[in-house]
């Protein structure tokens, strides 16, 4: 394993991103279609990725309506073939909807407020990535109460995050700073009650800032 490759982001591999090549999210484009505000945003018409997404949504909409309007299998078959290019992307979104990750409790026990794990994990990985010479890997967030807790248990949370770090950090120093920043982000950015932060340094980044000056060549 190359030492400077960030550790795998396991949740992101499972949960396909909906960011288009232009940086817009598919869901934001579709939201504009739903709201009828596509004309207000010149980017949507000018950008090939966004206009393709808009067109695809039209195809999907058409497809779903026709599917519902007719029982004729032959017609359904033809429509299915026409919509194949859309299907993968649609199924990605559906899968993401059906598997958003565990809901984590927000706020007080009496409040029925939740934040899905994938959104919390993304926030904490960004905190780690923002530190010099640190790259985040996988991050899981779960109740301190542990695996026995029911899916919608309320209570304090534990964060487990894997990072790769440059040699400028000592592990205790890195753990102290990262733990402090994650706890603060949990409180100030999200509103989650994070009590425990487990940090695993799983890899070393060698001269991450400047690959050309890596002292020992490319370790394999």
């Amino acid at each position, binding site marked *: 394993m190359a030492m400077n490759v960030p550790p795998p982001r396991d949740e992101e591999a499972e949960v396909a991103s909906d960011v288009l090549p232009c940086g817009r*999210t598919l*869901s934001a484009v579709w*939201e504009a279609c739903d709201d009828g505000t596509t004309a207000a945003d010149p980017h949507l018409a000018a950008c090939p990725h966004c206009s393709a997404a808009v067109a695809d949504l039209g195809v999907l909409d058409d497809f779903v309506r026709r599917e*519902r309007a007719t029982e004729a299998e032959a017609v359904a078959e033809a429509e299915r073939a026409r919509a194949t290019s859309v299907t993968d992307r*649609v199924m990605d979104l559906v899968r993401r909807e059906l598997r958003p990750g565990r*809901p984590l409790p*927000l706020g007080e026990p009496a409040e*029925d*407020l939740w934040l*899905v794990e994938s959104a919390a994990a993304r926030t904490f990985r960004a905190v780690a990535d923002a530190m010099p010479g640190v790259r985040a890997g996988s991050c899981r967030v779960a109740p301190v109460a542990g695996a026995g807790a029911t899916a919608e248990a309320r209570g304090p949370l534990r964060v487990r995050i894997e990072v790769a770090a440059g040699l400028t950090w000592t592990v205790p120093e890195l753990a102290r700073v990262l733990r402090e920043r994650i706890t603060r982000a949990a409180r100030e950015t999200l509103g989650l009650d994070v009590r425990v932060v487990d940090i695993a340094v799983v890899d070393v980044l060698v001269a991450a800032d400047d690959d050309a000056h890596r002292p020992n060549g490319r370790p394999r």
Partner: protein
Amino acid sequence: MTRHHPTTGRVPTADRLAQRAARAAREVEGVAYLRPGLAALLRGADHPRPAGVRVRHRTEPERWAIELHLAVLAGHRALDVARTVRAAVAEAARETLPARARLSVKVTITNIT
């Protein structure tokens, strides 16, 4: 085409409630979008419902449960947005529902964008 609930005939109220809840939620500062609700679309609901809102109704005693899934804009504290949405949706729902009805509102943030 509106489909009436076999025993209560309350589905039109549920639709109206869902639409009001969606509008109230969208107006809250920091809400990016309500979840698209594709799974429901593909299951073939026979009338359009607002995305990201689910309304459930029980009788005896009359009870309504509204569930919202939404994304929050980065730079807004997730908890504060969720709280504001919950209060705004409850207030909007109260205008539609009879005073004796019990109401619960659940908010799940699915993304920060």
